[in-house]
């Protein structure tokens, strides 16, 4: 009887002593550190906005907004400078448009093929392949555009110059293709099987099911993928810098050299501009324009997804 009796100081309740104070304290420390990491992402945004605004204000103290928006020449590096941003915007618009004309139809059809037509084992190979292709650096695509595609196009397009918007736009489209295809495929694949079967039960063929039932159901995801593609095209730098040239011209002719917003930034920033000069501020004014355009596209995408997203059980 006395063996089983243990004095209170030896009971198991006393042997196991969780240090709750210490573990709560370590949790508080971790929470604080991780919380401040989270704040960093907000500071990044603030940093971007502040950087762009400060230098853009300096820019507009010397160049009028009217000239920035309505001048039809862009020659900030000349002795008699002109600052017509639409020259650069027209080039960005041209290359992005060509790129989307390539990437959207091909990307959507490829997404439909992967999700609806390809056998499962083919999809299991093609999908990762697409994702790897989406990771090919754009500077390599720039190399393709300038040194492989342009010489080929020159053989059958008269008047095509060494630097041109066409080959930059085409390759930009090819570069965007995997991203658009992969993201739209995610949206299409996520449409529940019931919808397809319901459509078949009503007598629709496979094509009718895809275009009239599945694609509308996946619309928000597809549009988000396309808008992301537009934002990428507008912000893409290396392909257009290498293949489209450095020649700011207000034109929509795809055969001649042009200069996009991004390739202007590369041209000036790569040239070691002294801080505090108007040229340096021009860099940020162009950056600001680019940032505003991509931000608007992003807001549009948010709005679209929220408005048209379909929810299924």
């Amino acid at each position, binding site marked *: 009887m006395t063996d089983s009796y243990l004095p209170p100081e030896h009971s198991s309740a006393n042997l196991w002593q969780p240090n709750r104070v210490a573990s709560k304290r370590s949790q508080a420390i971790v929470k604080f550190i991780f919380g401040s*990491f989270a704040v960093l*992402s907000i500071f990044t945004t603030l940093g*971007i906005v502040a*950087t762009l605004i400060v230098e853009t204000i300096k820019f507009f103290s010397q160049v009028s907004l009217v000239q920035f928006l309505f001048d039809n020449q862009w020659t900030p590096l000349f002795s008699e400078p002109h600052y017509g941003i639409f020259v650069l915007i027209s080039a960005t618009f041209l290359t992005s448009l060509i790129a989307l004309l390539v990437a959207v139809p091909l990307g959507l059809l*490829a997404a439909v093929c992967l999700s609806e037509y390809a056998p499962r084992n083919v999809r299991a190979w093609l999908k990762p392949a697409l994702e790897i292709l989406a990771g*090919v*650096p754009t*500077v390599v695509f720039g190399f393709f555009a300038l040194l492989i595609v342009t010489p080929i196009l020159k053989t059958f397009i008269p008047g095509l110059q060494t630097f041109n918007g066409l080959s930059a736009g085409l390759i930009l489209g090819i570069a965007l293709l995997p991203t658009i295809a992969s993201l739209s495929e995610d949206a299409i694949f996520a449409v529940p099987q019931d919808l397809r079967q319901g459509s078949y039960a009503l007598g629709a063929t496979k094509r009718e099911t895809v275009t009239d039932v599945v694609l509308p159901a996946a619309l928000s995801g597809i549009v988000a993928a396309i808008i992301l593609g537009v934002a990428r095209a507008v912000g893409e730098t290396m392909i257009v810098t290498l293949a489209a040239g450095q020649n700011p011209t207000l034109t929509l002719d795809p055969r001649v050299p042009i200069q996009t917003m991004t390739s202007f930034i590369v041209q000036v920033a*790569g040239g070691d501009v002294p801080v505090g000069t108007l040229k340096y501020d021009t860099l940020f004014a162009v950056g600001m324009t680019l940032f505003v355009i991509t931000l608007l596209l992003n807001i549009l995408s948010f709005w679209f997804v929220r408005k048209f997203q379909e929810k299924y059980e």
Partner: protein
Amino acid sequence: MTATGPKAFIPDEGIAPDEFEPNLVGRYKLDKVFAYASWAATIIGLVVLAFLLISTFADGLPRLGSSFLTSFPSRNAGRAGIASALAGTVWLLLITAAFAFPIGVGTGIYLQEFATDSWFAKMVEVNISNLAAVPSIIYGLLGLMVFVRILEPITGGRSVLAGGLTLALLILPVIIVATRETLKAIPDSLRIAGMALGSTRWQVVRDHVLPLALPGILTGTILGLSRAIGETAPLIVIGAQTFVPFLPTGLRSSFSALPIQIFNWTSRPQEAFHANAAAASIVLLVVLVSMNAVAIYLRNRFQQNR
């Protein structure tokens, strides 16, 4: 009852059987055309990409040898190599990983495990998806302002540290989103069981959730890092050099990187340099594809084991 409801059931007003043309032959024909078109689009995309990659390999392989990897840039295309560019890329990779991995994973854990559904978490979430859509060249401008100019006493100006920090900011959204998605997929029963045994939230996360989530988090990190080392534009903006005849000596050293070297060689008019650009592209692609392959392998294993 309104007129629209029962109307369809009145046989007289419905479509007469002989008016309904199923036209199955025509519809199946259209179906076939559509199926072929979708296959054609997939194949065209892949063939074009394959053609471009193969022609790069054809251009670059003859130049690729051990001397190419160990030589410094030179005015003589035949003797030029990528030693300093490759070293710069490795330095950038390490610096970027050292900053982006802890900060990205920490933010992800905070948002998913500690601050779910708070207004702060929502604000950070919207902010992160906005950041993910900002063009990389804008990050270059931020890096130029913050890391090259304001923090010059620490980073040493146009240095490899400034480059790595800029790239870290660039890929933070990728890592944060990947971390959150992975944590979201870990079943809640695990957390509840841990807490029922008296663990704090952090203990549950550290001892039970994170070990399970690690493959997914690593996948996201590797994908982010492979994006970082392929980036050219932000590095040009913050001032990476194209002609660096030495290896980086420290964090404050000036630097080059593989994409910068490719850009420089591609934009030269002499043909001989173009072969160098192709050869350097091959090296960069091999590095990137192997990183991505590891990431996808990790993810597939993770998905199977779940």
